[in-house]
């Protein structure tokens, strides 16, 4: 079965099911399927989408996002969700890399990005929500969302894709300054959603409050799972306003609320009584993206003793590699991320790729049906990450006698802040654009507040041109980076620690704190 066929199956099984709702719209399973069919028709006819063409979706969490996504898949294309909150620079980079034939976005974003979109020569059609105010932009024809989804043929085009065909490109921070497009097939996504549904026993009586961005696999995986299982998805963009969040959980009888550990940390820190009161009906909560401190696990378990708290571990390239339900294992295991998900195999390997025995620490490798076939148009990176032993995750870990994986560190220089992963190289590249900066090095350091896991710290050597202060450099970074990438601290130093080959030693950057000038 293909991903979009699950929507058709759910609509056929329970046409009246209230499948989706956002702050402006509610849609039953049959209505979502009909709208997705109309989007697919528009794409195949107006944009002449061919199998494997890309359709970029630049929308926030909304009914329109889900309809556009399933419509794109039904048209045989590869969906490319892009977070509208990204900087214009990053959005342009992704659009140029993906070369989409069609793009779906909100009118406000079209206004913000008109110059960029007009230069994307691959675009044949741009669908604008709620309506288009012009007929063309660059070479692309503009269509209005309301007109596309409200009338005409709702039957889906004949399926031309196979389970092993790519369904999705998700851009993720790698070890390079630019994001990489991770390819995921229909089979990858079906295997992952099958494991999510099976583990939490998601069913038609479940209502999930989804505040996670659907442009990331944590959130999008829950869309796949709920559309497939036939539960209700209440879509919001983030946790704010918090008073309404708690009201929604209580009034809508929400049974599931996935969140990253940083969000749980915030809720425990400030709003513990409200969480306990509003969330008492929750049947389960999923968490993912970064380790959850053991004391937070204990507090959630104590506050919500009847709620199953489930963690999964997995890169975008190997979604949901492990599952652990904290209430089902002894506390000594709460530092673990659990055993391999059904159908997957975990191995621990040394630098030469040799399998290590139980208890030894090495790089975590994942094999199985959720593992990506590679990166979009990046054969070298694909070859480096994927081999006969599966995906080299870049995470360090060890397995115990019962196959439980404990993550102990990272091989790759990635920073995980509040569940968002980023490459230090991207931040360094931005800082080095400032005329006063000669060298810059960036690392993840523990968040002193204990909320974000890591925060970004930058160390800068000035060129002598100008008199940049940490505050000036931070402002410069804020104007060019997404908020979570902006260094929390910037220290001006005399020199950076380097290897004999001249490579920055990130592990020694924190030694500079003692010798650095005061930071802001």
């Amino acid at each position, binding site marked *: 079965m293909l991903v979009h066929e699950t929507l058709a199956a759910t609509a056929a099984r329970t046409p009246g099911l209230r499948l989706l709702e956002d702050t402006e719209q509610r849609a039953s399973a049959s209505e979502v399927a009909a709208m997705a069919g109309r989007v697919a028709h528009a794409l195949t006819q107006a944009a002449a989408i061919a199998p494997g063409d890309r359709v970029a979706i630049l929308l926030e969490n909304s009914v329109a996002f889900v309809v556009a996504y399933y419509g794109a898949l039904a048209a045989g294309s590869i969906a490319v969700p892009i977070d509208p*909150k990204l900087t214009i620079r990053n959005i342009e980079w992704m659009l140029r890399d993906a070369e989409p034939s069609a793009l779906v976005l909100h009118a406000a974003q079209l206004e913000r990005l008109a110059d960029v979109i007009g230069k994307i020569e691959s675009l044949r059609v741009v669908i604008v929500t709620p309506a288009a105010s012009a007929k063309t932009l660059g070479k692309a024809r503009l269509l209005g969302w309301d007109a596309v989804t409200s009338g005409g043929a709702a039957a889906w085009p004949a399926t031309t894709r196979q389970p092993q065909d790519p369904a999705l490109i998700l851009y993720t921070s790698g070890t390079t300054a630019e994001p990489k497009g991770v390819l995921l097939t229909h089979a990858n996504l079906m295997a992952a959603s099958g494991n999510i549904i099976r583990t939490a026993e998601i069913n038609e009586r479940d209502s999930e409050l989804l505040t996670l961005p659907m442009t990331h696999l944590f959130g999008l995986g829950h869309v796949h799972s709920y559309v497939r299982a036939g539960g209700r998805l209440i879509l919001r963009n*983030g946790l*704010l306003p*918090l*008073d309404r969040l708690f009201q929604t959980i209580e009034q809508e009888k929400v049974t599931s609320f996935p969140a990253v550990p940083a969000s749980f940390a915030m809720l425990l820190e*400030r*709003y513990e009584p409200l969480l306990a009161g509003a969330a008492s009906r929750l049947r389960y909560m999923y968490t993912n993206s970064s380790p959850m401190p053991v004391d937070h696990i204990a507090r959630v378990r104590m506050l919500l003793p009847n709620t199953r708290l489930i963690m999964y571990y997995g890169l975008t390239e190997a979604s949901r590699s492990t599952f652990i339900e904290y209430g089902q294992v002894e506390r000594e295991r709460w530092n673990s991320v659990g055993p391999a998900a059904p159908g997957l195999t975990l191995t621990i390997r040394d630098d030469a790729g040799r399998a290590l025995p139980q208890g030894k620490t090495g790089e975590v490798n994942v094999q199985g049906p959720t593992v990506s076939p590679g990166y979009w148009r990046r054969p070298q990176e694909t070859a480096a990450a994927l081999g006969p032993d599966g995906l080299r995750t870049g995470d360090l870990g060890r397995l115990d006698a019962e196959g439980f994986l404990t993550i102990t560190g990272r091989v790759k220089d990635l920073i995980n802040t509040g569940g968002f992963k980023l490459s230090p190289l991207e931040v360094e590249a931005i800082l080095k654009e400032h005329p006063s900066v000669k060298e810059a090095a960036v690392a993840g350091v523990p968040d002193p507040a204990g909320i974000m896991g890591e925060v970004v710290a930058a160390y800068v050597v000035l060129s002598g041109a100008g008199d940049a202060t940490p505050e000036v450099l931070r402002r410069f970074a*804020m104007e060019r980076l*997404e*908020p979570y990438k902006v260094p929390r601290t910037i220290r001006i130093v005399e020199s950076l620690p380097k290897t004999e080959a001249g490579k920055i030693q990130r592990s020694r950057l924190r030694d500079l704190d003692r010798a650095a000038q005061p930071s802001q």
Partner: protein
Amino acid sequence: MKTVTEQQFKAIIAAVFGVEPSVIVDGLRPGQIPAWDSLGHLSLVSELERSFSFTFSMEESLGINSVADIRAVLAKHGVTITPV
């Protein structure tokens, strides 16, 4: 009682969200600038607590849905914001 100027008040919030102080107007709400998300909100509350030396109650923290709401909480805690 603590007194700050309008300029200082806006500068505190602007620094948290990484925007120019001119962006900080009473009608500004979460989500209207990328940095004012849930974690940005937590940073904002922590920074206001640090700057004005009092602790927000849970209800006060929950009730901040605009810059105008911040003014109201500060006034309740005896903070005066002067025009200059």
